[in-house]
């Protein structure tokens, strides 16, 4: 009788252990890259006009709208005109758009440098469209998808990350947008007010990298 009791206890103990173990929360890998308030790195990347561009070239800028975007992604394509509009609205106010293609053309040929030149020409980009050659910049920022926006604000000579996320809340239909996240963030910076929504998430195309 005692023995049965012991066996039963063992079974029950095992059952409970398995159950508890099964309910253990999954470990997910931490996202590397910038958080709000971090200092963003400058870069020296080739533009579609074959000239090198750095953030520090913009002496009069108050900050930057850095957008990781590309040619092939339907979300990036859906936002092309809105990115052009952002630059038109904010470059003169001190926050120019700097677009960077983070994709490895070996994995996505449409996102080649030549493809970028062609797209910039077709769409009449008025902002630099840079190639993250060697894919060294996007991991430092922590960009994971296209489009992925980082609004930087120049504070005491440093570029501080003030917004990370999506352009607005409706990629599919620009006529039905309720929240223009990037505009709200830059407007807040321009009027020295706190940014209400400093981070947002949206579906995008994962950055194509062999790393």
């Amino acid at each position, binding site marked *: *009788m005692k023995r049965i*009791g012991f066996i*039963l*206890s063992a*079974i*029950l103990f095992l*059952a409970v252990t*398995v*159950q508890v*173990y*099964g*309910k253990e*929360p*999954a470990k*997910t*890998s*931490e*996202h590397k890259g910038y958080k709000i308030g971090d200092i963003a790195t400058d870069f020296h990347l080739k533009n579609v006009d074959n000239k090198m561009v750095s953030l520090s070239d913009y002496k009069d800028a108050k900050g930057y709208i850095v957008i990781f975007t590309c040619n092939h*992604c*339907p979300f990036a394509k859906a936002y092309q005109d809105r990115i052009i509009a952002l630059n038109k609205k904010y470059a003169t106010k001190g926050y120019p758009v700097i677009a960077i293609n983070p994709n490895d053309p070996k994995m*996505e040929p449409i996102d080649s440098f030549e493809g970028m030149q062609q797209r910039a020409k077709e769409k009449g980009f008025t902002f630099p469209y840079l190639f993250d050659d060697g894919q060294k910049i996007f991991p430092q920022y922590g960009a*994971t*998808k296209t489009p*992925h926006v980082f609004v930087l604000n120049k504070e005491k000579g440093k570029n501080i990350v003030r917004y990370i*996320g*999506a352009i607005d*809340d*409706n*990629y*599919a*239909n620009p006529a*039905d947008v*309720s*929240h223009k996240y990037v505009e709200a963030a830059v407007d807040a910076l321009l009027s020295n007010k706190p940014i209400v929504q400093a981070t*947002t*998430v*949206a*579906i*995008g*195309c*994962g*950055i*194509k990298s062999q790393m």
Partner: protein
Amino acid sequence: MFQMAKTTMRNFFILLMAIISLNSFDQISEKKLTGSVIASNQKHMLKIVNFDELQTILKKNDNKLYVINFWATWCKPCVEELPGFMEVNKSYRKNPGFKMILVSLDLATEIESGVRPFLLKNNIVTDVYILNDNKRMNEWIPAIDKKWSGAIPATMIYRNGKKLEFRENKMQKTELVQIINKYLKQAI
């Protein structure tokens, strides 16, 4: 003291009986379910849902291990990992404790022009839901996983409303099989 041991023992018996009867109940429902699972897997099931509707599908308390894959027809790495997922589904779909669901982020307007032809062409036989809730992405992405930046493909494993795993990257078949086996072994 002896009395206490006796009571504990009786409780053990009651619990054991409960476990045994629960197991046999599971076996009965297994038999029933196997038939319907095979039947529904002859063809894909395709439906447009919002996030609330998707939640009720994902958070069922039915002891099934749900493999949920977020993808889109235009997403190259998603399309590349799908054949591996379909092979995995083929080997597990008869297991009543397993179910694979694809959640497409294609536009709902492209259901007939893009998504369905893709499913037919690629012989996709799982349940497919088009998540049509674009304006609430900033709500449902963190609701699915706080660390999800929104890049696809992304895959998660659920059982009884609890998220067991989340991956925001392309998955190899071997990795997926490893995870599934780990949790199927832990079946309650």
